[in-house]
């Protein structure tokens, strides 16, 4: 194969974006968002002060908020940050203006709370310190020859049907387990992008990393999960 020089986006270090906005009520979008009827009903109940609705909100979003807090503030402060975020949500839900989805509003609150906590602790933590390259991953130089070609053939999979793979209970456990072992920033970026389907711009604002670095985090997470499937196809276990 003939090689030409092509400038690629580097697997850059994770850079912090501009300083976070202290305003807790800042929105991801300034325009009105179309909110589904179910969510509208939940919001109405929450604004009326319905405790059951608030418990439902906690059950639906606590895990995701904890992932975001861990990615930004680290394990030590994450539980406190989310607790503080719930207090803020409780106090401010009556003035929720429906300019974004409820989830985006919650993520903005927990993100700002986590950034505020970092400032309070006077710690300048780059996501670099919370994340990192995984040795042995597909991006590891050991997988490639000096000319950039694969060192070994990519392993074949016995099953490539997504439907069939989704039937595999053991594989689901392996993927869930690996997801929980990912570095916090990778896990948060992956969940926000591939599970929650948030835009790269919104993820950048929530995690305070550049759009390029969000893409790098998501890519690394996918590659790690792909290796789980590689292993599962080869051995039938994690």
């Amino acid at each position, binding site marked *: 194969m003939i090689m030409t020089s092509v400038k690629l986006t580097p697997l850059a270090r994770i850079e912090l974006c501009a300083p976070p906005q202290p305003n807790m009520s800042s929105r991801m979008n300034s325009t009105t968002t179309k909110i589904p009827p179910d969510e509208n009903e939940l919001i109405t109940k929450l604004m009326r002060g319905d405790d059951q609705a608030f418990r439902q909100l906690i059950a639906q979003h606590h895990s995701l908020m904890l992932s975001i807090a861990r990615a930004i503030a680290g394990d030590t402060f994450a539980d406190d940050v989310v607790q503080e975020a719930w207090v803020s949500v409780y106090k401010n839900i009556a003035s929720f203006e429906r300019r974004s989805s409820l989830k985006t509003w919650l993520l903005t609150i927990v993100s700002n709370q986590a950034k505020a906590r970092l400032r309070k602790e006077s710690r300048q933590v780059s996501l670099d310190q919370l994340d990192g390259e995984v040795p042995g991953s597909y991006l590891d130089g050991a997988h490639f020859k000096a000319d950039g070609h694969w060192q070994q053939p990519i392993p074949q999979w016995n099953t490539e049907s997504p439907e069939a793979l989704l039937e595999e209970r053991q594989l689901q456990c392996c993927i*869930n387990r690996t997801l929980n072992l990912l570095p916090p920033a990778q896990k948060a970026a992956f969940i926000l992008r591939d599970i929650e389907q948030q835009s790269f711009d919104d993820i950048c604002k929530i995690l305070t990393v550049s759009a390029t670095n969000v893409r790098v985090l998501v890519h690394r997470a*996918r590659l790690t999960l792909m290796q789980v499937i590689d292993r599962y196809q080869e051995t039938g276990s994690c």
Partner: protein
Amino acid sequence: MLSCKQVAAVASDYLDNNTPLKWQIRLHLLMCANCRRFVRHLKITRDISAKIVGEDASVNTDVIWKNLQAQLKKEKLPDRE
């Protein structure tokens, strides 16, 4: 022509339709079976992982709710109990 290493580095951007190198990657994929398999496997990984939702079982809503109420009491806000 892109190398396999370069294609592997931007494969997610390609799947997300988020790269100016789309045609160069396609050209490489036409000629490289390993990278075709790599990108196909990455796409399957992305698609099935998105459908697997986990870990919510660990949320203890009662404890979080009680902590919230306690915090509100501490701040002397009217609670709802």
